[in-house]
């Protein structure tokens, strides 16, 4: 599904290779400044590599701008404000999320699917679709941004430290819900986290970014 070959970005990434199979859920860990977010930037198109190729679902997307990759790559960014529009309602944000697929209207079935995904988080967001996002708590916002990112058709989901600003209780709830949604939809997913509690429990394998290289972290059985 995703193949990176010989990716170079200044001093951050040096001839980095990565291969993720369809339906595989991969956790990426590593210290600050090791280039994890740059790696996501290269995959999503927010950063252009000086060398190497990004192949998604068999297509070379290296030179395709970020806004034209969104039908294939969906992202939840570390900065919660970038994942939604605070001045709009939940419903308006949902419409924008579905319009990513190219259409300009959202069907009743789409709205029902969206609400049922929101209900997985158990925050009662599904019954507050006309609430303005600025009135939501941090956990509710992150839940909304994850549901928005997993709306419409996409091939690869990128999650960049989605629990970093949340309390432990809300983090556990969000991680559990992400697990449920990605398992249910057999999502190909790449997730960056600093939280070592999820290092071996989430997804299929764990990679550690160190010295611009990704190394497999063995999981205890």
């Amino acid at each position, binding site marked *: 599904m995703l193949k990176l070959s010989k990716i170079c970005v200044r001093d951050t990434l040096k001839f980095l290779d990565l291969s993720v199979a369809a339906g595989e859920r991969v956790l990426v860990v590593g210290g600050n400044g090791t280039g994890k977010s740059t790696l996501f930037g290269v995959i999503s198109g927010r950063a252009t590599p000086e060398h190497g190729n990004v192949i998604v679902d068999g297509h070379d997307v290296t030179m395709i701008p970020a806004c034209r990759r*969104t039908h294939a790559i969906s992202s939840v960014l570390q900065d919660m404000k970038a994942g939604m529009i*605070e001045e709009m309602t939940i419903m308006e944000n949902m419409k*924008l999320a579905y319009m990513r697929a190219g259409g300009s*209207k959202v069907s009743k079935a789409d709205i029902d699917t969206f609400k049922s995904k929101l209900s997985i988080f158990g925050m009662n967001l599904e019954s507050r679709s006309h609430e303005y996002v600025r009135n939501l708590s941090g956990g509710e916002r992150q839940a909304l941004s994850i549901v928005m990112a997993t709306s419409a058709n996409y091939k690869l989901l990128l999650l960049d430290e989605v629990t970093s600003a949340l309390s432990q209780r809300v983090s556990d709830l969000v991680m559990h819900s992400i697990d449920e949604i990605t398992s249910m939809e057999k999502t190909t997913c790449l997730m960056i986290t600093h939280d070592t509690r999820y290092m071996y429990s989430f997804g299929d394998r764990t990679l550690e970014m160190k010295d611009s290289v990704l190394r497999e972290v063995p999981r205890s059985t």
Partner: protein
Amino acid sequence: MIGIQELLTSIEVGLILGVVAIGVFMTFKTINFADMTCDGSFVSGAAVTAVLIRNGANPYFVVLASMIAGGMAGVLTGILNIRYKVADLLAGIIVAYTLYSVNLMVMGNVPSIAFVDHRTIFSDSALPAVVVVTLLVAAVTCMMFSGFGLKLRAVGYNRQFATTYGIDVNKMTVLGLAMSNAMIAAGGSIFSQFQGFCDVSGGFGMLVMGLASIMVGTSILHFKREPLLILSCVTGSILYRIFINIALHSDVLGIKTQNLNLVTGLIMIGIMIMKGGVKRNAKAK
């Protein structure tokens, strides 16, 4: 105090210039782009109108032609900003400055053109002009409620979000500028038909007038649903005209026509101070 006839004229002028206020709203609020092209594109609309009407063109078609001219000015500002990375304020100032000469050329190198004796949308009554303005307001309001309008607003609120969700920010910015300046030029066209002449300096202060209308309108009619704020712009424009007219006709205040900019500036400062006070009180609570 002002008479009924002066009040009706204020409403009429306010309604026409409400179209300009909508154009200003579309850039400053909707796509969050400080566009200064307004003073130039307003005259472009008026200049195209004057020349075409003097050559016997249909006055309704003339409004459309003016919108195309204004739209082109907006596209130029957009290209300068997006393609050549000129700051939004500077791009608009350069285009507005350049348009002065372009508008003069369109007008055959004369500073003003009168066409009082030619057929305009005001020839029979003011009703056709009211219909044209209503159609323009309805079109923009419907657009703002559409998926396209939602994307346009998303660009103004959060460019990073817009990119993440597949919205081409550059394309939407240029389209927003084109539509905004098309509306401003339509305002220029209708206003010049109302006056029966076009002056190359007639656009001076139009941007400030548009901003003042938005401030007055959104302070009085604050709709929760943003697309409806388009109606606040028109209401604000009408109320602004009425305020100005009352101020100029008040013997007590003793304000004269030459004090118009001072009055406008004071109205804007007053509203901003009031809004600041409301925000401070809300925070204190």
